[in-house]
């Protein structure tokens, strides 16, 4: 589904990703962990098409297409979804109007007729129920004045509506208390399916108690330095990142 080959990217001339290799197959959940500044969020941003980053080498193939050639909106239409670490507040645009535009733009991209208001509302209500999203938030301006938990839940709700093939969760746990974390994780788990893959970017292991990964990768200094089964996350929780750093330095 997703094949990242020797991906290099920099921002303002500073190289952040120094050759990332990663294969993701449908139905899999991959966790990307690593100390602060290792390049985790950069990887998520580059995959979603954030323009501040310059790709300086390598390639990314998604469902047979050269992902790096696509605009962010085309990537979304092809089935990539980025749940933001800091969802943006947009005054004056309601969540419902925002999503209706998004759904119909994606349908247009795929050559499908737009959903009418009734069809759209029915679908949205079902999805809101699925991820325990409060209906009253839908009519409010997008993320404006939402609590941290509400914003993250809104991300998961948008994911439910857009039904991506690959969901990338960028530090979705940051700023959440344990209850909010559980609700958001439940939403993500509800959306797991054999066709859908998920990349969970996180610093801490605690999110992985709820969203259990198939693989754990440790990113350090712009490279994946260790990969393993879910138990690797527990080991990191117990021992911290220093032993990994030491391992890398010893080899390097």
């Amino acid at each position: 589904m997703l094949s990242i080959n020797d991906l290099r990217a920099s921002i303002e001339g500073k190289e952040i990703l120094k050759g990332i290799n990663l294969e993701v197959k449908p139905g899999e959940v991959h966790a990307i962990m690593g100390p602060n500044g290792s390049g985790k969020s950069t990887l998520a941003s580059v995959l979603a098409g954030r323009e501040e980053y310059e790709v300086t080498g390598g390639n990314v193939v998604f469902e047979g297409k050269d992902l790096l050639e696509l605009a962010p909106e085309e990537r979304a239409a092809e089935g990539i979804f980025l749940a933001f670490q800091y969802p943006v507040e947009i005054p004056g645009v309601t969540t419902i109007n925002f999503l209706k535009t998004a759904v119909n733009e994606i349908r247009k991209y795929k050559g499908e007729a737009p959903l009418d208001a009734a069809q759209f509302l029915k679908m949205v209500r079902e999805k809101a129920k699925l991820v325990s999203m409060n209906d009253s938030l839908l009519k409010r301006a997008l993320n404006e004045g939402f609590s941290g938990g509400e914003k993250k839940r809104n991300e998961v709700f948008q994911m439910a509506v857009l039904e991506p093939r690959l969901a990338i969760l960028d530090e979705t746990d940051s700023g959440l208390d344990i209850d909010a974390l559980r609700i958001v994780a439940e939403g993500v788990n509800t959306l797991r399916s054999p066709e859908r893959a998920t990349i969970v970017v996180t610093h801490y292991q605690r999110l992985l108690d709820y969203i259990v990964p198939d693989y754990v990768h440790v990113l350090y200094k712009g490279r994946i330095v260790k990969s393993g089964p879910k138990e690797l996350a527990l080991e990191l929780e117990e021992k911290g990142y220093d032993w990994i750093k030491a391992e890398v330095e010893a080899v390097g």
Partner: protein
Amino acid sequence: MSTETIDLKTRLITDFHAREAVLNGEASSEFHQKKRAGLARFEQLGFPSIKHEEWKYSNVRDLISVSYDFNAESSIGLAELEDLKVPAQEANILYFVNGRYNAGLSTIISPVEKITISSLAEAYKNDPSKVASFFNELTKDADDAFTALNTAFTQDGVFIHIPDNQSVEHPIILRFVSDAREQNVGSQPRNIISVGKNAHVKLAEAFRTLGDQRSFTNAVTEIHVAEEANVQYYKVQNESENAYHIGTTQVRMLDRSHFYAGTVTLNGKFTRNNLNIVLDGEHCDAHMYGLYFPDGSQHVDNHTVADHQKPNSESNELYKGILRDKSKGVFNGKIFVRPDAQKTNAFQSCKNIVLSPDATMNTKPQLEIFADDVKCSHGTTTGQIDEEALFYMRSRGISRPEAMSLLMFAFCADVVSQIKIDSVREYLENVITRKLASK
């Protein structure tokens, strides 16, 4: 000053004297004496150059470089107006074509025995002393050549008088159409609106142009807001690429009254709006909202004044603009707090999105505060579209142009939502949506 500008000024003055010569007895009337004083004022001030502080960023040289027919006849009918319509619900609709009232096109549905809604010319015929006493009363001290010019030359406009405790159920829509199909046309409407104690009214002025020749509108509106009255006043300009518009709205508010203004400039070559509100009462509140969208080489200048003369009143102002291409925008917002006006609250904000490196926006807040126990604040921002918001929307599949449209529409929404005449607000939403989608 070029010879051309002297020409238009001289021509106007000569024209005035020629008309005066055939007035006979009317020349000695109070009304005409006020007009003559207006001419003298205009003669003394002359057209402003950019050396004039109030006209620093707005050059009228182009405007006054040609002549205009201020008496152009028009055979305009409803069919030709179809495209220019601002759709209305049940409303009083008054048409002014090239500055003169057109009864055939107009519909007045509010009970005339309760409130007066008529043309200024007709009101003057019916009650000369009443109209003369209102005429130029609020603008008599104006230090503005265009207002003086309007005083000297106006021939028509609207005269609205709402007695105490009357509520005008249906909005009043004033449609000013410049018929510039054949020639350069000029019009100088004067609107006088007197709202009695505890009376309520919603009214809108809508300016449109027919044809591609030049039009020059020099409009003045005087609004008297008595104690406890509530007035919603909107000005919508959707004129041609050859339309020059200079307008002054002068408002005087008395105790516990409420005044809401919405000024929306959708299109026009050169626009200067002066909105001057004198809060001459306690516990009154004035609200000013503005929106402008110049593109091409259009120029939009909004000058506003909130003049607090008495204690315990509030003014609140929000102007927003989106500038494209090589357009220019100007905002000058003055707040005066006179020595007596303790406990004044005055807020002002002007926010702009500049979409092109060739577009410019000049903003100047000007606060003059002579009382010590007041709350005043002002802020202006001029920036580009929020890239982070744009990326967020694109990451959800919304194309860049569509995301831009949504963000800009949202930017306008807090001004548009303040327009309380439903049909006018819906009209604005439609025009704005089309305009935002067109680029």
